[in-house]
């Protein structure tokens, strides 16, 4: 893994601009956060296809719904707290229920928002979004994967939620890797059989770091990058459970209703093994630097390594 870092929100902004050039039905909405969500790149190039609704996320979701009924492909962006939290019922009743072609791309998800603290650290979004019928839910780990995902969700005719982060995270994949990516299919990294670490979003790089440290100690684990939370890749979960007998999930999200829960649902029904869920326990977040918070809440590489020590 190289030490070049980039935030997935930057990758999102860049890909949106590219998609905008290819498809004139792409329209972008933001709620006064375009410089932070990176939709400003699109706005500058395509001002006529950019709608800034001001600080009014509920209205933004409804407008996106209306636009989609005219064949537009709206990408609605704001922080995850407001896209999912404040506008939840609008997303549910005006987008998911009528199965409208709206893409909700939410940045600043998770504890790694950092210094802004609990009011802005969305830790429940994966649970809320995966609970909605019709909704595809993605949470990407690096630059190229994010760009790939933005393109993928634009192809689906229906609602999709993409979870993005503020913090810069390491580059994991190259162009050749991307060719093998498939929506709804987790990515296995390594073939270790001592344990499986399933991660998503900004914890994937931490899991890979942990895997390398563990290797030095003679412990061979595999990592699964679960970029699609819904539909969840049952096959890869069951295969890994059978081959490694030990499953650890790591997420920058509440341990309730997120990745760990989704994995547990699959295993408890089809192949019960013990699942160790690493994530934010049932508490609200707090201020601090992103890296410090990952350490504090034990979702960094060292915390994963310590599970084996």
């Amino acid at each position, binding site marked *: 893994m190289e030490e070049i870092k980039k935030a997935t929100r930057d990758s999102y902004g860049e890909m949106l601009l590219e998609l905008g050039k290819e498809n004139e039905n792409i329209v972008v909405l933001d709620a006064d956060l375009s410089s932070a969500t990176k939709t400003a790149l699109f706005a500058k190039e395509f001002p006529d296809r950019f709608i800034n609704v001001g600080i*009014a996320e*509920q*209205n933004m979701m*409804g*407008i996106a719904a*209306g636009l989609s009924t005219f064949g537009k492909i709206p990408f609605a962006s704001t922080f995850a707290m407001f896209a999912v939290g404040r506008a939840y019922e609008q997303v549910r*009743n*005006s987008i998911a*229920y009528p*199965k409208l072609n709206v893409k909700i791309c939410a940045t600043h998800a998770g504890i790694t928002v950092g210094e802004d603290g609990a009011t802005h650290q969305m830790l429940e979004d994966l649970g809320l979004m995966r609970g909605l019928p019709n909704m595809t839910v993605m949470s990407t780990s690096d630059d190229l994967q994010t760009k790939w995902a933005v393109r993928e969700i634009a192809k689906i005719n229906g609602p999709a939620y993409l979870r993005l982060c503020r913090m810069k995270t390491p580059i994991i994949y190259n162009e050749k890797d991307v060719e093998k990516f498939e929506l709804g299919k987790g990515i296995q990294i390594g073939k270790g059989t001592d344990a499986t670490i399933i991660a998503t979003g900004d914890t994937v790089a931490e899991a890979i770091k942990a895997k390398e440290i563990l290797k030095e100690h003679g412990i061979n684990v595999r990592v699964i990058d679960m970029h699609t939370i819904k539909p969840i890749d049952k096959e890869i979960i069951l295969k890994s459970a059978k081959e490694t007998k030990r499953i650890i999930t790591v997420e920058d999200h509440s341990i309730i209703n997120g990745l760990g829960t989704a994995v547990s649902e699959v295993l408890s029904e089809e192949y019960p093994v013990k699942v160790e869920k690493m994530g934010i326990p049932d508490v609200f977040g707090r201020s601090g630097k992103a890296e410090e918070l990952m350490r504090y809440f034990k979702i960094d590489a060292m915390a994963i390594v310590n599970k084996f020590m």
Partner: protein
Amino acid sequence: MKVTSIEALEKIAKEVRRGIIEEVYNAGSGHPGGALSCADILTVLYFNQMNVDEKKPNDPNRDRLVLSKGHASPALYSVLARKGYFNKELLQTFRKIGSNLQGHPDMNKVPGVDMTTGSLGQGISSAVGMAIASKMDKAGCKVFCILGDGEIEEGQVWEACNIASKYELDNLCVIIDNNNLQIDGEIEKVGGMNNITEKFLSFGFNVLNINGHDISSIIDAVTTAKQTKGKPTAIIAKTIKGKGVSFMENKAEWHGKAPKEDEYKIAMKELED
């Protein structure tokens, strides 16, 4: 086909009202009060004002209607059936298991329903999105949105009005079904909603105040709305909740309950031609 005679439109509105009572009576539940109050408005829109063709419910160039007060679904269904979007017999299935006529309108189940609504305050945002899309495409579609006067207590309505004004959506016409009652009573007492005209004016709307049961006033107002340039229009239609059925008129209790058999018979008699 456009119906132009006031008398013929009044006759259709009466038929629509009978449909509403049939639906709610057969379902044993539903919202007759607010459906009856907007029956004349919907009749004028679908039979006289909107560019729609029941044989082409998905025509991209059609005008759109968003029933933001989705609980008035019996009125919308009754109008759509009368217009020929679907068989009138289906009205008997309203709210029943297996029926496409859900308690609140579902755009994926009923031809002619342009937006899924029901949760108050949300439809107007979708209507704003439609109006923006039509402008982007230079499609020339008009978008109509019917709001309840209780519904406008939802903050989202004003978020939507703000943007309708920002984008100078002169292809958007919102109609407020101002029957003055919400579930718990009078709107001024329950939610404190007052000065509706001033509120819409301050949000940059062209505001028209009319009697929402007077067919020719509705026609005139919608015609004016269509001709207005540079700003959206709000038609504040003074209406009577339960209009047309004596014992339901101006009674908040008829917001959301079905008539019993004897009440049903009286209502149908009162709505005879």
